[in-house]
């Protein structure tokens, strides 16, 4: 079976969640099938500027074919179009314009997908909200698998995505919450789907002692790993931690790992280590008492899974349904929805060793059961086998886009309102 993994960016040094997810999946499936990655030359997800060389290169044994982006993102235009579709009554044409403004607009990539539909048995598209996934899925619906990586944000309420969700051959969800949300907005119960998620390359023996020696942090600390961004809830995290440090437990430190686009407060117990290599990152996690996940929107937190893989509990933002659901289902962490809960939960985890150990053990078990690579691989392979078996089964085509005038009729509700109407909460069943 020849597979094409289609993703907006790709590279060993690109650490976006969906991009890393795609890389891991491609590399794992390459052990079983013939896999090729189709992507753009972009490195920056804001501008989509062509930075990487065009053509084919091999990354970790997987051939990667890069295509140019037609135009970079105009931030002002994108913001205006986003406001038009997220907050106001709008038309299909407005949504397509928004999608074009968001990018990465790569007609060459789309052309290749369309022209090589006979070359690949299956196309696995990542990230429903980007141009390449939308148009690519529409180009080869009968061979398309979609990994939506959907979050609870207004984009899920856009009308153009409903036919895509319903029209692809299979949906590979990251979480139960994501599945419930997509099924609600797009009625995808008929589409084959499975909650897969993503595994992680976790070293066997991360060394807490090595980290402490290397960075000189001997005090107990909580760690945050990821992009330090207000959109990831880091501003709230700083506020909460400063209050916690001031009023509850002064000796606990906060270690931040990752690139920052947010000013980090000057605080004697907040340490920013910048971007770390994987080994150092896992060492930091191993040395930490708890991993903090303050993000409001996540389709799947790989960092949380990695923390669980090495037996560390997670304190997650309970306003993110996915994180809350995972924490509850795994029994491997606690969650908070306001400062008092943050303070109590953090204190409970960091001060009660038995609780910490129990949560960590549960996390390890949860990871092994659901997110270990053999499990993930098996789910993908099973889905591909199933699709191969049903390849000849007739199915309804993907809904076409409306005509010229219907496409311009402003009758669609604001996407934010649609997204807000989606039932919230963790899926515990």
């Amino acid at each position, binding site marked *: 079976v020849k597979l094409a993994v289609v993703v907006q960016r790709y590279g060993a040094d690109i650490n976006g969640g969906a991009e890393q997810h795609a890389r891991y999946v491609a590399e794992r499936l390459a052990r079983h099938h013939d896999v090729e990655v189709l992507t753009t030359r972009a490195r920056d997800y804001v501008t989509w500027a062509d930075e990487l060389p065009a053509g084919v290169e091999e990354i970790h044994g997987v051939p990667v074919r890069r295509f140019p982006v037609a135009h970079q993102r105009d931030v002002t235009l994108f913001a205006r179009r986003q406001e038009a579709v997220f907050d106001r009554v709008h038309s299909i044409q407005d949504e397509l314009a928004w999608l074009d403004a968001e990018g990465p607009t790569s007609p060459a990539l789309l052309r290749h997908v369309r022209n090589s539909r006979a070359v690949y048995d299956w196309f696995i598209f990542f990230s429903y909200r980007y141009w390449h996934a939308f148009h690519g899925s529409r180009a080869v619906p009968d061979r398309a698998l979609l990994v939506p990586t959907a979050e609870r944000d207004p984009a899920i309420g856009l009308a153009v995505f409903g036919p895509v969700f319903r029209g692809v051959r299979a949906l590979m969800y990251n979480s139960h919450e994501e599945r419930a949300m997509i099924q609600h907005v797009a009625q995808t119960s008929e589409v084959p789907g499975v909650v897969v998620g993503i595994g992680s390359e976790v070293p066997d023996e991360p060394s807490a002692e090595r980290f402490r020696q290397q960075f000189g942090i001997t005090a107990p600390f909580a760690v945050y790993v990821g992009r330090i961004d207000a959109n990831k809830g880091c501003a709230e995290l700083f506020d909460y931690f400063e209050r916690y440090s001031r009023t509850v437990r002064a000796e606990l430190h906060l270690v931040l790992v990752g690139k920052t686009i947010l000013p980090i407060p000057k605080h004697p117990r907040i340490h920013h280590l910048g971007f770390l290599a994987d080994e150092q990152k896992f060492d930091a996690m191993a040395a930490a008492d708890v991993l903090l996940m303050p993000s409001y929107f996540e389709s799947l937190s790989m960092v949380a899974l990695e923390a669980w893989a090495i037996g560390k509990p997670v304190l997650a933002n309970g306003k993110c349904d996915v994180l809350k659901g995972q*924490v*509850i289902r795994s029994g491997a962490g606690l969650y908070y929805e306001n400062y008092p809960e943050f303070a109590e939960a953090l204190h409970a985890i960091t001060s009660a060793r038995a609780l910490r150990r129990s949560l960590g053990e549960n996390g390890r078990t949860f990871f092994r059961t659901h997110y270990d690579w053999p499990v993930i691989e098996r789910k993908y392979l099973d889905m591909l086998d199933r699709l191969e078996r049903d390849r000849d089964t007739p199915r309804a085509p993907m809904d076409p886009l409306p005509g010229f005038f219907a496409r311009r009729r402003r009758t669609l509700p604001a996407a934010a309102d649609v997204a807000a109407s989606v039932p919230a909460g963790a899926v515990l069943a």
Partner: protein
Amino acid sequence: MSDFTIRADAVDVEQIMRQIRGRIRDKRGVDYTEEQIRELAAAKLERFLDPTGVRSDLLEQFRTRPSLPPGFLYQFEDTTLFDSDKPIVRFFRKLLHPFLKLLFNPNVLSTTLHKQAAFNQYVHAHQPLQFELLHNLVLELTRASIEVKNLKMRLESVQSRLEFNERRARALEAVVQYKADARVRGDRRDDSRRDQQPRGEHTRGQGSQGRPPGAPPPRPPQPPAQVRAPQAPQGPQVTPQAAAAAVAFEEPATPGTEPQGGIDPITGGDSLRTRRRRRRRGRRGPGESGAGEGEVRANPDPVDDEGGDNLAPQPSTADSADVASSPRTWNPGAPGLSTDATTSVQLGAESEARLKMGSTSDAEGDNRAPQPSTEPAAVTGSPSTSGPASAGLSEGPTHDVPPGVDSESRQRPDATPDRDDERQ
């Protein structure tokens, strides 16, 4: 924040979160939901805003404001003045535009109208924001008022706990001192001490509290022998009764002597035991033995001594509460006894009578304090309380009363003049 007791195989995250929320509720008082806060916001607005003339249905009124007049929002560009549905009309207007500009300047008009249109749109766009802002302010104000109320409750709770802890600390300190003294003096007088304490406490209470306003600051305790020697010549001026009373209620304090629990060593006020015993005396009635106000006992408490001027040759307080509250004091600096001395004498006689009535307890009360200086040989008549130790601070047999010794013999009234002489 308490710790959790978790079994490794029994982690229920939701149960832990329920515990956490319960604990937060306990700390914060009532935990309000968003809906409840909104309801409270609507109700509380009256209280908050009525004084300024703003009604509680402000938000609702703001929300249901009259709709915009038709045509309020319009577009006005530089071409609007010359626009038309009919292309031919548009053409001629454009053709004649230069001619029109000869007659007047339409640009000013179109610019003004354009700005007005933009302003209308700006106002319209920001009205929801203003509503949102006002709405959020009201909610936050309500939330803050609830929090203030909760904090007040917590403050009261903490204050009452603090007071309780202070009382408990005083009680514990009194108990600790009691035991330490018992270790020094042995256990044999424990029983009688219980009966003795009220009288001594009373005196000490006067000593610490009865210093008249403006009195000089208390001195540190001094060895009684050093004090007594220069004051001895004044002795003959005092009647034996007065001396007895004076000595009795002005026993010098000696470091290491037993604090009888009458004075709190920290606060200087009556300790819990003192108050308790005072209540007990009040229940027994004023005529009973041990309840006499004029009863005196050695004041071994240094703190008490400092406040009570037991050793100081300066205006000292009299014995009882009555005397303490009275400005009449004995002035050792004056030749002989002043009119106050008469009072002292009377009180002393009264005290003496009471000493006889409760002789055993009185004797115990005096002698159990390891203050040899307060036990002159002439008074005690017991070899155990006489000797060189009486002038020093040593402890030992001289401080202890043998079980067979009649304590009353050590408290004979005729012994008091000697003591008084020594003190003066």
